[in-house]
């Protein structure tokens, strides 16, 4: 014996973006804070130590912002010309920056005047960074050279002139204190070892390199240039692992999230894309107002800071984790009540009586079970169901139609109910998934209430609305068919050639068969 089967409500798959863990995670940021800087923001760097201040380099200034401050808490403005690439040391106490005049300044974060100044580059220095031993600085300049400096003595240790164009980006290895890489507009990325006189590895990116990044493990290298982001395996001698082409303008900056699981790239096309570092597929993307020049992510992904070409700093803070307040508010029954009897193991001589599982049925299902058609229809014509889940209403109508009782369920209704019904039908009849059922319903309603047309202004108005909706839909469908016809002619011209060859084939087959038949 079977139990009552509830009405099947056909769920429609939701189109559009899929909700994944990533979208949920990356959507969890508050509305951005916009801060206006003086010029294009070429570098943003987070201090690696709490409270995770960040240094923003724009035009001739370096601003240091606190986590939630909208005003800079400190400014370094002793630059004659534009400053570039203000970078924190690992301990967060020193800050190095290059400048347009070719000098490199080293600042104490708490001081104002530069501690050291490294002179040697003849052209603007766009790249400055600390090696992981904390005592050396590497730099790259528009004079095609990349240099290594000693901090205590403020002297140049070594100068490599291997690039053939501006050196604009670079990165130090976190595992090896002697290794750093530089990317240049000569389309190459070079890996230098401070202990050797020349570069150890050269990678051909194919486009002017705008940004490079080393994975924390030091094994993988990411370079961005042109529209491409490329991932290289350093340990295999610079083998290309994957090439990503998800931006439609030059990619300007790269950044890893704190866990190293996601790679972020910002581009002039106003997008920040987030890749999974396992599958290298885009899992999420952000949209910004203008072209992006720089990008940084604070530890624990608390803040995303994006610098634009128009000098706007866009700061997004993470929403605080929603601590399930609801569960706290709701008083749960005491643990004892919940557990009572659950752990009892029946003994061998016990006679077990199973409690029948109570099935919860919706109201309309209960009514349908007892064959109360009109009441079941009433139940699904209630505004909450009708407005939010029209598929339930339609499913019940379909079920009633299947049972042959739809007509009697629709009949005998007063003005208000007919009005409600007609509103629903007129609104939903054009939805393709509801059309087959609602057309029948509309047919029946017009049949049943034809004699009373003209007696109520409200109902008449609804009938007119229905007529209008259907008329519009018919026009629309006609147009669609016209378009389809046009497309067909287009397709036909494309496939003409293939068809003829099929025709030949077919005729061949038939003639052969006829021949064999004659043989029989």
């Amino acid at each position, binding site marked *: 014996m079977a139990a009552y*089967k509830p009405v099947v409500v056909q769920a429609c798959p939701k189109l559009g973006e899929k909700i994944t863990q990533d979208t949920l995670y990356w959507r969890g940021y508050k509305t951005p804070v916009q801060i206006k800087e003086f010029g294009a923001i070429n570098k943003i760097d987070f201090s690696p130590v709490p409270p995770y201040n960040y240094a923003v380099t724009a035009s001739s200034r370096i601003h240091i912002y606190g986590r939630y401050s909208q005003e800079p808490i400190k400014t370094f403005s002793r630059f004659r010309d534009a400053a570039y690439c203000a970078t924190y040391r690992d301990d967060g106490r020193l800050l190095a920056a290059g400048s347009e005049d070719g000098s490199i300044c080293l600042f104490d974060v708490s001081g104002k005047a530069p501690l050291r100044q490294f002179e040697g580059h003849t052209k603007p220095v766009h790249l400055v960074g600390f090696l992981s031993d904390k005592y050396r600085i590497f730099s790259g300049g528009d004079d095609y050279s990349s240099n290594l400096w000693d901090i205590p003595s403020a002297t140049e240790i070594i100068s490599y002139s291997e690039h053939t164009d501006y050196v604009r980006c670079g990165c130090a290895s976190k595992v090896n204190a002697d290794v750093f890489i530089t990317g240049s507009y000569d389309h190459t990325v070079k890996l230098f070892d401070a202990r050797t006189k020349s570069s150890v590895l050269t990678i051909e990116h194919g486009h002017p390199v705008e940004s490079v990044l080393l994975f924390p493990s030091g094994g993988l290298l990411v370079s961005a240039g042109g529209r491409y982001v490329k991932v290289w395996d350093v340990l295999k001698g610079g083998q290309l692992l994957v090439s990503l082409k998800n931006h439609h303008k030059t990619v300007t900056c790269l950044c890893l999230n704190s866990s190293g699981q996601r790679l972020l790239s910002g581009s002039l096309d106003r997008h920040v894309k987030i890749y999974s570092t396992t*599958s290298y597929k885009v899992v999420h993307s952000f949209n910004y107002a203008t072209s992006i020049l720089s990008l940084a992510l604070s530890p624990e992904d608390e803040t995303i800071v994006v610098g634009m070409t128009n000098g706007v700093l866009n700061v997004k803070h993470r929403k605080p984790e929603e601590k399930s307040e609801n569960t706290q508010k709701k008083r749960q029954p005491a643990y004892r009540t919940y557990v009572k009897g659950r752990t009892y193991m029946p003994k061998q001589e016990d006679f077990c009586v199973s409690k029948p599982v109570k099935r919860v049925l919706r109201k309309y299902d209960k009514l349908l079970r007892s064959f109360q058609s009109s009441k079941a229809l009433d139940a699904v014509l209630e505004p909450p169901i009708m407005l939010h889940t029209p598929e339930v209403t339609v499913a019940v109508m379909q079920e009633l139609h*299947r049972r042959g009782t739809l007509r009697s369920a629709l009949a005998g209704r007063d003005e208000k109910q007919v009005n409600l019904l007609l509103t629903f039908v007129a609104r939903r009849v054009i939805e393709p998934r509801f059309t087959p059922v609602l057309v029948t319903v509309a047919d029946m309603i017009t049949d049943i209430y034809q004699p009373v047309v003209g007696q109520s202004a409200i109902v008449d108005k609804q009938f007119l609305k229905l007529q209008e909706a259907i008329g519009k839909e018919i026009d629309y469908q006609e147009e669609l068919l016209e378009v389809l016809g046009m497309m067909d002619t287009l397709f036909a011209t494309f496939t003409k050639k293939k068809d003829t060859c099929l025709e030949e084939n077919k005729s061949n087959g038939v003639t*052969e*068969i006829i021949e064999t038949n004659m043989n029989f």
Partner: protein
Amino acid sequence: SRGFARRCSRGLRLPRSARAPSAGVTAFPPCRYLLCASGDFVKVYSVNTEETLRLMGGHADLVTGIQLNPHNHMQLYSSSLDGTIKLWDFMDGIPIKVSSLGFYLHLHFYPLSGPHSSVLLLVSDRFFFLWSDTFQLVSVKLTKGAGQDLESKELSVVLDGVGASVKHIAFGREGAYVVSVKDVTLQVYFFKRKLLNRFSLSTVKTKGGDNRFSCVVCHPTEDCIATGHADGKIRLWRNFHHRKEYTYSTLHWHHDIVMDLAFSVEGTRLLSGGVESVLVQWHNESSCQKDFLPRLGSPIEYISMSSDGALCCTLHTDNRITIINSNLRFSRSIQGLIKSRDVKTGLVVDPRTKALVLNGEPGHLQFYSLQSDQQLFSLDIVQRQYIHQAGLKQSDLVKVAFSAQGTWLATVEESEEVTDPELQLKLWFYSEETQSFTLNTRINTPHDNHITDMCFRDMDELGDDSLILVTTGRDCVFKVWVMVEDTDPEGKTHESVSWSCDFVGSYHNYQATNCCFSEDGSLLAVSFEETVTVWDSLTWDLKCTFCHPPGNIRNICFGRLTCSKYLIGATDYGFLCCWNLLTCALEWSAHLNIVVLQPDPLSEHIAAVSWLSKESSLFVFKPNEPRPLYIQRNLCKEKILLAAFVPRDEPETISSEKYLWLRKSQLFFLTDTQELMTLSTKSLEERLTPSSKQLAVEESLPVTPFSLLLGKHRHQQAQEDTDLGKPVVHNKQEQASPAVKELLHTPAHVLPSASFLCTIFINSLLISKENKSAEEVADEVEMESEKADGDSDEEDVTVMEQEDTSPMELLGEMTCKLSKSQEKELRKIRKMDYSWIAAF
């Protein structure tokens, strides 16, 4: 003894050769067995375990009625269309008495208890009018003697013009009167007073009411008759001793014909059932008090009460028996092959269970195990509440296909409406955890018109990537469906798979009728009306076309194994064609009206069933040989609609050359009357022996002769061990002495006092060296229990000693001299059934 005399036999025309347990008569002797007439057989079911205990064959034609002997509840009368009445001992399945009545077409009968001990029969008109409406009720006196062929010729007509069905006749309390209904007339005949009262209802149909009688029953203790009517009313007649002052009251709940009625044993409750498939229980003959047992699955055909009133059973139109408790709770159901309205799905074999898969209950797919003649399970495909009402457009399952491993199941359902079929294609995945199919993808309106055929590309070696589903429709296209993996970028959270359309093919706007993949999956053949098109399954290019005008293609299939270069097709105009795919030419053709074309999945053989002038013939051939391997003309009178090759578990050894093609798989047919048939190489007797010799083991523990022997052997070893001074722990079950058994199996209220039993019980547990004292006590107990067996035991013992010691000696260390208890044991062994040995 009156217990079951009320409702006599009832029969139902059911497939004869079908393996389905078709319905018939039900009767509960001591509430443990359920008897049922099924085709030519009478089946005995166990009420507790639902299994078929015995199959009693012997009638040459349809069994029309069965009835327990009112004098002995262990005996059963059965009547058949072959004109005989048999008295059976249904515990042993032995016919005790056969009474031949000659030439009657139909007989249902009612053994009457009473002084004259005659049997009343409802016999067809004695003239040979096959479709004559006039049936007579005659009484026949059966002779007392127990012989095999008795002629009973003492006939006397009791009633003329009775209804043909068993439901139209009922006997009043203590057999005082007989009631018969026909159309709108009710006749009551009083035996003692020799009085016939006739009551008529008006024939005028008022308010759509239909007054015709559908069934009649009598109250077991009062003078009251309950009749069911075609319009769903139940009338309770009283005072029918008088022609004028009779009264009746009406109960009305059913909206359609009342199929059957039954009174409870005390007569306080009346059960009724009909097409609503709801069992209604009326209390005290009042219409205000009633209980329902709804959703029994299919229309109720018969209702029967057990003699002690504890159980009730309903018999449904779809070949199912439902057993219901007295408190109107569903207890269990006995079902084999469910008879559906129309087998649209065809016969499909589930690769996983080797079960036959076809339409079952409305909207369900039944998995029917051929080996055990049981329904394995029923899969709800449509998942909608089925409303039993005439004139509704029901949606039902029309196509089924399995992938090669049975991991995927595709089903198509459509409603009966011609214009808007409301098609749904569903794909089900077999989940190992739940051990059943779960819905994976549902596609609404996969085609704009009816789907004509569907097949999977099933290739074991290429894995899941090669899985492709092809559907052909009357909307002139065929569609190719593929699996789409819907993975996360991470690829680890959850991997979901769904199906979507990959390719739509058509050919000159002809309706696509059939599709079929070649064995290696590289080619797809789709037939479009008159033409067969062959497509490359990789690029979906049309490779070549074949046709054999005139006539549409009815069936196509590819050859297998060595014949894989051939494509076989059958046309409407009665041609069977074989095309060679390499030369693209017709290899051979034969003029045959082929209805069914079925390739064997395990060999090159193809079975074709033709239908010509009211007879079906079977041809088995290999595509590379134009001469068929096997021809069976006149296979059956009915039209065969479907066929299926079911792989055997292990290849059968077939000596005859003629049946060699049946070695690896068995061929099953389904006819238009829904009979399931198979070709068997054995004779009827051979097939029947294993089932008819099956014996119900009455003990709670399964005791086989082998286990008894083994127990004996161990016992002796243990004895030796004790002799050697080793402590032995005895298994309780091994030495379950008769005393303990007696103690455990006797109902508590008939046991003697505990003090009396105590010594016996303890003695039986003692381990004595000689086993003397315990055995003696045990003997006593056993003697008591076997008193009924009486004297015949003594004679057996002597014979037994000679016979049965010989196998014992094989075990060695056996004392030649047997103690008395051992003899008892041996006697027991002898009573066991050894037929199972024959199986080895």
